[in-house]
Structures are given as structure tokens and as C-alpha cells.
């Protein structure tokens, strides 16, 4: 079937935010990611926000079971998945009910009109049919009989009713692609690849996708279609990348640049499991993945591998970090490199497993027994996860220390276009294993495992298997230099200070902290982690209003960059937005004794740029 060339007028818009929502069985994540791919290939900048229920199969048709995928794309730099939705595609009443508050006034809503039966409405908790009672008057509502048309289109497909009904998301995808003048080819390629071996399903999906596209062109409901021109991105080769993928790739890059194999120990936990899935496919890079019996074994095995000279890595979420705490202390004491990724989620306890939060910062900084400092860094966008993972490995290997990398569910599942780095441009991470004794006493050569490098204070790394360097590590306090067990009071104080000083030394090779906006002004917004997009979008808008606002986003949370005091001094006021109850703000206040102003949101959702913009306006009014 060939597609008619469009007869309808095309309106060019700078950006759009759309949200696909339906039951968790409706395939909304898939629809969203296929639309994302088409959008990336249309060279728009974009940001996505998948939002799915914690239950794998929540009762169908209820608001608990609603799964959504939000995507914002534009011809300018897109920093966030969008505050307000221009188009909501709602596959059932529950999806409409959950997501209607996000739709902007005059926004468009495409509903599956077939799904508004009495029972569906009841399940969603609607007393009256919103399509009939005028409650949607301020929106442009398009009632499309998706189920009927899907059944009609596939009546000769040979598929059963269930299979047919499951395919209706393809119709919706086709329609959305038409509406925003996106190419259909990426979705067609994907269907071919996915269902190539099941021709009936493949053909049905292709047929439906095209039907949906065609429907947009022929129905009289839609009088215009939209176009979003390509964004002016930095030259280079791009791909769409999710945070979890970028983390895995960053680790593999660090493995190659250090010459060490990765040993990845992990226990399944949302939302960190995606990293395990990614890495377990990368065996040809020599990556060893180990699905452990529990969180403690996952980090223990990674540390054991580090002892053996591998790059030990583990990832988890807050509850898992709590379980790993004792082993992190052992890593501090044994001074072995270890990378620990925390994909933060809403807490405490099991909390909100599929929702995002930045509430594990204090846990990362302080959540271990004893004086157990370790470097802590954070990733700020899905693509930035690559650099953050690489940097975490560099610090761990350079300073012989465990490093915590904070990401979150929003980063892990979110996607953005990513300029692919040339691997030849990535710096080497030099690693030297000791091969000879480093000390002579009474004419005998000995290896002292806690003699330190003058610059980094790192201790030497001697791999088991190296003759003459046999030594014992352990969790008991170490005597300076010899590494022997020591209960000496003065030694304990000395070693405690040494370990702290070693972590502080990381600050010595940090790059200058970049500022977004001018180097001085009335207000500096300070953030870390996944709030970057919202903060910069808000600062951008405030600056367009003529306000003297800049922002600074912290990659390094411990140690903090040495140039901060001097930057803070150039601004009158300091605002710290966080998706938690105020954690970085405490650290900054304690450290710099300045009146940092907190801005907190604790809803399991990212900031909307407008929320931060409002806080800026309130402060500078």
C-alpha cells in the first residue's frame, strides 16, 4: 500500500510535548520509544519521561495500571520532557483521568472512543462519561474508534481477537507519526526486525501502522498536521540513548581505557536492573556479569574481583545501598577500587520503586558505620551517564577507592539524542599493578601494601599471583604503611585522617565548575543530578525575562570542587532545588556557612521547569 502525499496544510511549530498513555498491557512504552526513534531521526532534540506502574500487571482499566510515555521534541535545545502536554493519546478512561492534569488548555486529546464503555468508566472511577458531560470543553478532543478500526483492519489477518486488540497501539503510533510529520521507516524497520520470524504478526503491525497514518490523512477531524524542524545540534554523529545504556557503555569504555576487565556484580532491583541487562549482552568486551544471590554478595563479589585486579562494579538502588553499606566500609578500609552506582528511587524502605527521587545523597555521603568517606559523583542527563560512569572509574582506579555514582530512575529510563564520542578521544586511565617489593628493611625486600603515592595518596595495587608481594588485607584497622592489624590509638587517628585526605585529594584534578549563564548576578541556582534540564530551562526563561540568574550543576558531590566558594561569592542569593526534602542544601550550608535557600519537591516526579522558574521569580520579585 502506498501512502498518499499529504494534502493537508502543514504548520511549523518550534516544539511539542506528547504523552502516550494507556493500560500497562497497551504497549505504551513501545509506542513512545518508537515515536522517539522517529523523532530522533527527524533530527529534533528531545527528552523523554517514561512513567509506568510499580505493579507488573495491575488490574486492567484501573488508574493503578496506567502506563505513560512523555516525549518533548523541538528545533531548539530541549532540556526537559516538558511541563505541559500538547497532545495526550489516551487509550482508555483511566489514562485520561490520570494524565488530563498535564494537558495544557487548548491541548489536543486523542481518545480511543471504543474504550469508554460503562464498565471502563467505572473501573477508572468516572461517574459520568467525560466525553459527554462537557468537562473536556477547554481541550480539542478527537474521538477515534481505535478498537473498532483495528479489528476491521485485521479481520483477515489470521490473528485471534486478543492478538488483534493488542496491536491497536500501532494504529495510534501511525496516527501520531502522521500528525507530527515523522518518518514511518524506523518503526517499519523495527517491526521487521522484531516480528520477521512471525510473518502474520509482522504484516498485521505494518498494516495497522500504515492504517493509522492514512487515517490521519483522510479523516476530516484533523485539519492540519505539524512539523518540527531539525534542531541545530553540535555537529557529529548522534543516536538516541537511555541512561542505563549510557552507564553500561561508559563502564565498558573505562574498561577499555584502563585495560581492566569489568566484573559487574548485581542483584535485580528496579530501576538498576537495566544496567545488568545491558552489560550482560556485552560479553565480547570481556565483561563478566554476576547475578548475585543478594545485594551484599553483589558488592562482595565485585570487591573480590577488584582485589584480583579487575574493575569491580556494582549497581543498585537505595535499599540495595543500605545492604551494601558494610562492604563499602571494607572497600574504604582495604582501599580497593570499586564503582557503585545508585539508581535512586523514591524512599524510604521500598518507597516508590518506579518513581524518581534524589533522596540518597546523604546516604551516599554518610551512610556507613565509622569514618568512611568516599568520592560521590552524579550524572545529570541520560547521555551524561556515559561520562559520569567513565569518571567514576577513573577516580576509583586513580585513588584506589570505592566511588558512588548517583543516577536515578528518571535518568536510567529517560532518553535523549547523544553525540557519540570518538573513543580515540577518550583519555586513557593509567593503571599500574606493583610487581616488585617497595621497601627494604635490614637488607630484605618487602612489600608494604599501605605505602602511598605522594600525589594521590593511593596505595599500591598488587594482584594475587604476583610473586613476592603476598599480603593480607582486611577490615581491621591497618597500621600505616605495613598494613598490619593495628589497635594503636594514634595510628587509628592518623589513618582516619589519611583516608579522608585521600578522598579530598580527588578535588585536585577537578576541572573548573562550569556555569550556565553569566559568571555573576542576583541569583545562582545550584543543582545536582537529573534536575539539570528543568533548572537550565527555568534559568533560561528567567534570563529571557531579563533576570540576572545563572545556574551551576554539580558533578562532584564529594569532594566538592574547590572553586565553589569563589563562585558563590559572586551571587547575591543561592537557590538549591532538589527532588528530596533538602539534602545538598544541608551539605552546602554546613560546608560554606552561607544562606542557601532550599526548593524541594517530593512527589516521585521531576521538577517542571515552571516550578523552578516560579521560585526564581518569587525570589527576585
Amino acid at each position: 500500500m502506498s501512502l498518499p502525499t499529504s494534502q493537508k496544510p502543514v504548520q511549523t511549530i518550534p516544539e511539542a510535548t506528547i504523552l502516550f498513555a494507556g493500560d500497562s498491557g497497551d504497549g505504551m512504552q513501545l509506542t513512545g520509544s518508537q515515536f522517539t526513534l522517529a523523532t530522533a531521526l527527524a533530527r529534533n532534540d528531545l527528552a523523554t519521561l517514561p512513567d509506568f506502574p510499580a505493579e507488573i500487571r495491575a488490574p486492567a482499566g484501573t488508574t493503578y495500571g496506567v502506563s505513560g510515555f512523555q516525549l518533548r521534541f523541538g528545533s531548539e535545545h530541549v532540556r526537559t520532557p516538558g511541563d505541559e502536554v500538547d497532545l495526550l493519546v489516551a487509550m482508555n478512561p483511566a489514562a485520561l483521568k490520570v494524565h488530563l492534569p498535564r494537558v495544557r488548555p487548548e491541548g489536543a486529546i486523542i481518545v480511543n472512543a471504543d474504550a469508554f464503555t460503562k464498565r471502563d468508566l467505572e473501573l477508572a472511577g468516572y461517574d459520568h462519561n467525560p466525553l459527554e458531560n462537557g468537562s473536556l470543553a477547554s481541550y480539542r478532543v478527537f474521538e477515534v474508534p481505535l478498537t473498532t478500526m483495528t479489528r476491521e483492519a485485521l479481520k483477515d489477518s489470521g490473528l485471534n481477537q486478543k492478538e488483534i486488540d493488542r496491536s491497536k497501539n500501532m494504529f495510534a503510533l501511525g496516527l501520531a507519526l502522521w500528525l507530527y510529520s515523522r518518518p514511518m521507516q524506523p518503526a517499519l524497520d523495527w517491526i521487521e526486525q522484531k516480528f520477521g520470524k512471525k510473518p502474520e504478526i509482522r504484516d498485521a503491525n505494518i498494516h495497522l501502522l500504515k492504517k493509522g497514518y492514512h487515517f490521519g490523512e483522510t479523516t476530516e477531524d484533523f485539519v492540519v498536521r505539524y512539523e518540527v524542524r531539525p534542531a541545530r545540534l553540535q555537529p557529529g554523529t548522534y543516536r538516541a540513548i537511555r541512561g542505563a545504556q549510557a552507564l553500561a557503555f561508559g563502564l565498558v569504555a573505562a574498561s577499555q581505557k584502563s585495560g581492566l576487565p569489568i566484573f559487574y556484580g548485581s542483584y535485580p532491583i528496579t530501576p538498576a536492573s537495566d544496567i545488568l541487562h545491558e552489560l550482560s549482552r556485552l560479553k565480547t568486551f570481556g565483561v563478566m556479569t554476576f547475578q548475585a544471590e543478594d545485594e551484599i554478595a553483589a558488592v562482595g563479589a565485585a570487591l573480590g574481583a577488584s582485589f584480583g585486579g579487575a574493575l569491580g562494579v556494582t549497581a543498585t538502588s537505595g535499599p540495595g545501598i543500605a545492604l551494601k553499606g558494610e562492604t563499602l566500609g571494607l572497600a574504604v578500609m582495604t582501599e580497593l577500587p570499586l564503582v557503585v552506582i545508585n539508581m535512586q528511587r523514591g524512599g524510604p524502605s521500598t518507597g516508590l520503586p518506579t518513581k524518581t527521587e534524589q533522596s540518597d545523597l546523604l546516604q551516599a555521603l554518610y551512610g556507613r558505620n565509622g569514618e568512611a568517606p568516599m568520592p560521590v559523583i552524579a550524572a545529570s542527563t541520560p547521555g551524561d551517564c556515559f561520562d559520569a560512569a567513565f569518571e567514576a572509574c577513573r577516580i576509583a582506579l586513580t585513588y584506589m577507592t570505592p566511588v558512588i555514582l548517583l543516577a536515578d530512575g528518571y535518568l536510567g529510563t529517560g532518553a535523549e539524542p547523544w553525540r557519540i564520542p570518538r573513543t580515540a578521544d577518550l583519555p586513557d586511565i593509567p593503571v599500574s599493578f606493583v610487581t616488585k617489593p617497595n621497601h627494604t628493611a635490614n637488607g630484605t625486600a618487602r612489600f608494604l601494601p599501605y605505602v602511598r603515592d605522594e600525589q594521590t595518596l593511593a596505595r599500591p595495587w598488587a594482584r594475587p599471583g604476583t610473586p613476592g608481594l603476598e599480603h593480607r588485607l582486611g577490615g581491621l584497622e591497618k597500621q600505616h604503611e605495613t598494613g598490619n592489624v593495628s589497635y594503636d590509638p594514634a595510628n587509628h587517628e592518623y589513618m582516619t585522617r589519611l583516608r579522608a585526605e585521600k578522598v579530598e585529594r580527588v578535588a585536585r584534578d577537578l576541572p573548573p565548575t562550569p556555569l550556565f549563564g553569566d559568571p555573576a548576578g542576583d541569583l545562582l541556582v545550584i543543582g545536582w543530578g537529573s534536575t539539570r534540564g528543568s533548572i537550565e530551562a527555568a534559568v533560561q526563561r528567567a534570563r529571557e525575562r531579563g533576570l540576572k540568574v545563572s545556574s551551576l550543576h554539580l558533578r562532584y558531590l564529594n569532594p566538592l570542587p574547590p572553586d565553589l566558594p569563589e563562585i558563590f561569592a559572586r551571587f547575591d542569593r543561592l537557590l538549591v532545588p532538589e527532588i528530596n526534602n533538602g539534602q545538598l542544601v544541608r551539605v552546602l550550608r554546613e560546608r560554606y556557612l552561607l544562606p542557601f535557600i532550599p526548593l524541594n519537591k517530593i512527589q516521585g516526579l521531576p521538577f517542571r521547569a515552571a516550578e523552578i522558574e516560579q521560585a526564581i521569580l518569587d525570589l527576585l520579585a
Partner: protein
Amino acid sequence: MADSPKGKKPTLPPGMQPGKKPTLPPQPAGKRKPGSPPGVAAGTTRPVLPPDTGGDGASAHLTRKDFASDQDVRWCPGCGDYAILATVQRLLPELGVPRENIVFISGIGCSSRFPYYMETYGMHSIHGRAPAIATGLKASRPELDVWIITGDGDALSIGGNHLIHILRRNLNVQILLFNNQIYGLTKGQYSPTSEQGKITKSTPYGSIDYPFNPISLALGAHGTFVARTMDRDPKHMKEILRQAHDHPGTGFVEIYQNCNIFNDGAFFPFTEKDTKPERALFIEHNRPLTFANGTRGLRLDGWRLQVIDLQGGDWSIDDCLVYDETSRELSGLIGRMFWEPDLPQPFGVFYREERRTYEDLLHTQIEGLIEKRGRGDLDALLHQGDTWVIED
């Protein structure tokens, strides 16, 4: 620290008065040389074998002394741990493994001090986690000879989960479980192997916990080599440890170990001269099960074990059950003979099975994929899927 070369000491935050610094060994003369290049060539991720150690033949002539570290052994005088340490130090030179390839990993407890006394690589880790740490080490460095030292509290209580999983995965390591049926390091609480009714500091009115039988547990966890020995029979212990080491898989050995401070004599019925012949049964593959200096044996009466008198004329050695360490059924049956008043306590190898090791499967899979698809190319990986180019 007067002899320290200037500038060698790390600059420390204020508060450290020079006079109060701990006595430290002299600093090495001159600048610390950077280590030689990593053992893995840049750009590859394949673990390489350790440097060849055979060159000077040093490892061929090691003696017991070569395995003793310079640390003072700090167990209580009379503790059964001494005998185990001595046995291991005697055994290692006979195994022909280069010393630098040997690693002892322990958890927490009296037994777990063991690595400090061994002049090998080692790690005294945290409570219960030695199998997890050893798993990462052995999986990533299969050529190392990894020994896990643990105790009844360490392995069966706080570390129970790791123990069962290392057994089912079958990493080629040795696990030496020093069972003294008590918490020694924390000064005498009952342990998961203590008998019911035991009076300890934490059970003044008697323990109500039912004890584990470590042998049954290891068998239930699909251990591929499961054995028991005792501190007071170094010959038997050495032989069992040798076999555990030679076994290509997890060699699990429970060692009855006397804690003369908090649980003295717990195993004396099995270990002391007067009662040992009557109460201890030494099982051997393909040999009839007899004890009491050959005067008594074990036979099967249906599915029940029966002690038979080999001198009364009713029964002969031919009636005795012949042990088969490859039989799951028999190992289950004999392994469950546990503190029975009418039956002796079995020692020896209960079960042995050849099953591919975890590390072998791990690296075979990786190498197989590399052979099939070629070594991973990072640039290709990053460009996988749909890409697009933005021109200048």
C-alpha cells in the same frame, strides 16, 4: 619519623602532633617507583594469567615455614585452630601450587583470623561474606587457588545465603568451616550448630534453637564435594583437605574444632582416644562401613541404618554397607547421621561429583562469544542501531 625523606609524608589536617604519631616503619628509600605496566594489555579486556612463576623454581622447594607470616598467632592457647593452621601449612608445600597464587579469604570470627597467619595473599573480610568475595575473585581470576576460611556462625548464620549459593554454583575453591558449635570471638553465645538445650551467656535457660547439620546443608545446596574431619586427627584432616583441594569444584570441609574456652570438649566423644573408636565412623569410598576397630559395622535394614556386631557370628563384613561417595542417596543417608545416640558420627568424604565450575562456564561463554562474533569494538557498539549525522 625523623628518617623520612622530606615531603614523603602526606600533608594531614591539623590535629596530628608530630610527637604523637604512631611508630611507623621507615619510609622506603628514594622515590616509590611506579609499578610496571598492567597485567592486561591496553585495549583488551581478557584476564591474563599471572606471570610465569616457574623460572627460578622457587615455588618447588617451599616448606611449612614459607607459609607462616610474621604475625603472632593470637588464638587462645589450646585452641583447635592451631592444629588446623599447622595442617594447612604442612599441606600447602605438597600441593605444588605457586605460593603467590594462593589466596585465603575469611569472614569474621576466631577462625577468620587465619589469613593473617598465612604468608600468602589473603583477605580478612566481613562477617559471613567470604564466599561472596571469593566468588568475585575466583570468577575473575580462575587460575588462583582460593581457600575460604569460615566458622559455624560466619558460614551458617550471618553468611548462610552465600554459603548455599557458592555451593550450587560450584566455584573451584575450598571452604574450611571450623565448627566449634559456639560463638567464640563474641565470648560464648550459642551458634547455629549448638545443640538444643545448650546453656550459654545468651541462653541461660537453655537454647531452644534446633541446630544445623552442615553436611546435610551442603548436600542440600548441591555441593559437589562434601566432607567432615576433626582438629584432633591431623592425618585425616590433611588427607581430606588434600582431596578437597584436588576436587575441581567447591571442596566443602566441615572441621570439628575444639573451643577450649567456651565449648571445651564439644566433640570429645568423637575425637578422644577412649571414645573415638566407638563414636566415630570413618567413611571411605568403596569400603564397608565399620567402626570400633572393625568390630562393628553398619548395614541397611530397609531404609534404616542398623549397627551390626561383626564378632557375634550373626554378621560379617560382607553384610556391611559399602560406601559410595558418588551416590546422592547414600550421602544423604550417612550425612544425616548426626548426634544419634545409637549411631557413630561419620567423618570423611560424603559426596563427590564432577560438575563444571562456575568460572569455567563463565569464561567458556565469554570466549565462545568472542570466537563467534569477534572481540567487542567500542566504536561499533556506540554506533549500534539508528544514528544520524549533523553536519557542520
